[in-house]
């Protein structure tokens, strides 16, 4: 196994996912298979190959610092499940 059940639980927690015990086993299996598959790349000598961060051979796609119209408050909040006084309303944040 490339990945332990404990690691799956950790990643799930970080992603705020609640998994059943059965699901954890399934994902441990699947993720391990994926990692094994990707590991084939290690057979290649990439000593002189710079790491790829982007598959397109492009750089410097930028825009000028010119303002564009924003959404109205009403439209911005249109999909919010809850709102108050022009704000998104969310469960209390505990610090």
């Amino acid at each position, binding site marked *: 196994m490339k990945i332990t059940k404990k690691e799956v639980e*950790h990643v799930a927690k*970080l992603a*705020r996912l609640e998994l059943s015990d059965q699901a954890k086993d399934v994902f441990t299996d699947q993720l391990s298979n994926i990692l094994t598959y990707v590991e084939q790349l290690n057979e290649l000598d990439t000593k002189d190959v710079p790491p790829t*961060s*982007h598959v*397109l051979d*492009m*750089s*410097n*796609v*930028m*825009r*000028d*610092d*010119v*303002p*564009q*119209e*924003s*959404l*109205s*408050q009403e439209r*911005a*909040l249109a999909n919010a499940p*809850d709102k*108050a*006084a*022009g*704000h*998104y*309303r*969310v*469960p*209390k*944040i505990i*610090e």
Partner: protein
Amino acid sequence: MKYEAVIGLEVHAQLQTNTKIFCGCETRFGEDANTRTCPVCIGMPGVLPVLNRKAVEYIVKTGLATHCTINPSSRFARKNYFYPDLPKGYQISQYELPVCEHGYVEIVADGKVKRVGLTRIHLEEDAGKNLHQAEGGASLVDLNRAGTPLMEIVSEPDIRTPEEASEYLKKLRSILRYIEVSDADMEKGNFRCDANVSIRPTGSTEFGTRAEIKNVNSFKFVQKAIEYEIKRQAQILDEGGRVVQETRLFDSSKGVTFSMRSKEEAHDYRYFPEPDLVPVVVSRETVEQIAKTIPELPDAKRTRFVQDYGLPEYDADMLTQSRALAAYFEEATKRSNQPKVVSNWMMGELMRLMNAEGKEIEDCPIMPERLAGMIKMIGEGVISTKIAKTVFEEMYKSGKDAETVVKEQGLVQVSDTGAIESIIDEVIKANPAQASDYKAGKEKLFGFFVGQVMKASKGKANPDMVNQLLKKKLSE
């Protein structure tokens, strides 16, 4: 035991662009909630961020002004965490390959110049703002700030005292303002600081366990928070305890830091390269072009002020804190040719009056040529330095020039021998006991007579002449 503190600072400075870092929404402060957002900055599915060219220019400029290496190629990364003010569930930041690395900032500490290393400067987007609603147990979120461009400036752990930390922040702010990339206003939250503080026995070279103090919002508080933290950690170690690695907050009303998270749920941000943004390549030509736009920086100005105007290091340091202040000084000096006198007036009366109103030099009602005019009148003996303070205050209040104020209020210095002599005669006549005591050898009383004569002349008598004539008269 004797301890030494090891301090590293992380500063988040907001770039003064017109628009956000990855979309065209305006970055204006104080707008109605959620009126400066768009699908990109509120994280709607399927949108594509596009980098603001100005943000890149500004960070390169900052890197050059702080002696950094500008990486020829850099890229963005996603920093994953959940918080209601972060609509996408990740912050676009930089991880490996930031735009700038390996720089330094010079500070004056204990009268000596010290270098504080910069590990890196990278670009990232700001989050929104949470408002904690008292009633109803809910929080409100305003996303206007989400996507505002920030530079994170990370120092090496080179700082050793709270004073050095404060000097470092002041210098950094000064540089950012000189090169006009950020207004670095702490009160508006445009310049935020986190401090990493640890202590170790003096002489040791190993690092102790550090505490991170988050979001302290004034220079004074940064200093106070670090002072407190050093004491707290020293006490723990002296009692045989161990410092816990944790995030702490500063309570400015009590002057203490307190633990923010009960248990270290170690951060695991799972950084990975941002697939929506292509690499940023900064060519040598671009670097050279940007370098040309950098003005004379505070350190170079300070050195020049000491060399060219013969100012003390302290004066030069104060006067070069802002470009406008330095320009004011140079203009007034050019017109009066008396640098040290100009410096004294600026750092004394001018700062006192402006600080009392919380004004900046840009709003100073006395133009530099008028300060120079007043200094000339002192030099020519038209007014005494003492009277000049009254004149100066009136100039500040009314916006009039020195000559007008002096004329209107009849403040011209009395340098007429006859007039001063007659005042002296009256003072001696009114104080016969003191006069005979003085003649009997109580020379300390001379100051008393000077005071009385100045008072009788309403401060207008030429002090040099008063001294001279009084000596003569009292020995008659």
